[in-house]
């Protein structure tokens, strides 16, 4: 049996960072499974990578583009999928932010 390298408290903290409210069953399951996955990926730490330049994307060129105004979707189109919005005011609506 693989001993989990993550504690339940750590998994709870990750869930909060990721804005996920987990049930206690989910917390138990993910503590075990994330521990298994981390144990598995540990193997790359044995490789010597000193001085190796990291690859974040493979294009070998910058992916910036010029900032040129162009046609966009309309405000109505963008608000059309919102669970709660005011089309008159042109705003997405969310619950109160300051408690």
């Amino acid at each position, binding site marked *: 049996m693989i001993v989990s390298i993550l504690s339940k408290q750590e998994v709870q903290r990750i869930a909060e960072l990721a*804005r996920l409210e987990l049930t206690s069953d989910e917390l138990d399951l993910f503590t075990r499974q994330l521990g298994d996955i981390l144990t598995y990926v540990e193997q790359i730490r044995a490789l010597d990578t000193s001085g190796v330049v990291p690859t974040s994307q493979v294009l070998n060129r910058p992916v910036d583009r010029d900032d040129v105004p162009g046609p966009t979707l309309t405000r109505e189109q963008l608000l059309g999928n919102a669970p709660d919005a005011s089309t008159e005011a042109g705003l997405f609506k969310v619950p109160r*932010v300051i408690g």
Partner: protein
Amino acid sequence: MDLRQGSGAPSAVAAVERSLTRIRQLEPKLSAFNTVLAERALERARVLDSEAPRGPLHGVPIAIKDNMCTAGVPTTASSKILSGFVPPYDATVIERLESAGAIVIGKTNLDEFAMGSSTENSALGPSKNPWDPTRTPGGSSGGSAVAVAARMVPLALGSDTGGSIRQPAALCGVTGLKPTYGRVSRYGLLAFASSLDQIGPFAVTAREIAAVLQAIGGFDAHDSTSSAEPMPDLTGALNGDITGLRIGIPRAFLTGVDAAVLAAFEASLRIFEARGATLVDVELPHASFGIPVYYLICTAEASSNLARYDGVRYGHRTTLSKEDGLRAMYERTRDEGFGAEVKRRIMLGTYVLSAGYYDAYYLKAQQVRTLLRQDYDRAFERADLIATPTTPTPAFRFGEKTSDPVQMYLADVFTVSANLTGLPSISVPCGFTGSPEPEAGSRLPIGLQLTGRPFDEPTVLRAADAFQLDTTFHMEAPPSVTEVTDDQPLD
């Protein structure tokens, strides 16, 4: 070449009707589709029949993985969190297919947000492998692979982040290509891991794949990672001539492969040799680290990409009481909307990007990604293509790997490298397990994977096409779907 006429359909309407008939007959058994656009497709076919032919895709039905935006048509990524979402715009690939005359016939099932290798992570339930419905079709583009394997459509699009086109293509006995990173615009593809995601076609033959890639490939100003590399004449490259082509075999990497898969792979190499190709040994010393590197990088990118699903702009929002603030809305919406695998990956990604772990996991993985790219650079000094089996095993049973995420991840051991390196890679049917007896499950398809240099789709497709000139594996349809006849009455 005209794909519709090649299929024997006298008109676009006839081609669409044939597709719709097969979908209606087979869909209850196979669950390939999330949405079928019968009326829309027929209407479009009638218009196309009144027009001058636009090219090989004119009037040809195509199924689209349900993680690509289709204007006015629900796009779910097989996730509850996108329930009710109707995109106001088309993905670039949809625009290009339609202007080439192809007809979108429906949206296909996938593992939620393309995270999985079996479609078992779909919030809408799994798709079934037409060769044996007790087995998965692979994933994540399982619905698209099933739709082509069951001959419900001649063509489909999938997306491939770690093997999500090639693995289900192999497990369902069809041809599937992941193009070079940057070859096909990702505009309108719901992002999973942006440095790895790439859209590509499924079809019966490499020749049809070439026609689809010709239509969807090339620079797009809407995707800053799309490449300005000119699109070559792909169909013109399919001349059957592989004389002197050097095919590299990374022998040391081929461990833990099922005996039937390995036997089919070895037999395929003889077919290439007989046509004039040369086999050479290559080393990919870091390929065995592909899965850990992949899962560190793809989860990090996913945790960032999926932050947008928060119940504000689209999709599901939790039911709120008066006391609930914004944070409770985010947390509960996301817990209700995402399935278990998506949550696991968001959390793993959040963890590996967090302070104190970034260098040990994420940065380290990016460095090993560089080492892997260097392996391939060296291998391509000796070889023009690299061949491996697409998957270590044939299609697995439902539930076989669901309780152990690491076992599921290992289904992608041979496919993730092409995503980490950005290289073009195709899976081609190359044999079957068991005997040709019609007993269900005795005969499962096996896939051969060919990976090429960046933007060298012409060589990848030429070799795949040459292989298909000498073999008939790709032409075999599953017995359970060949019993259906086109003129059988509906329902």
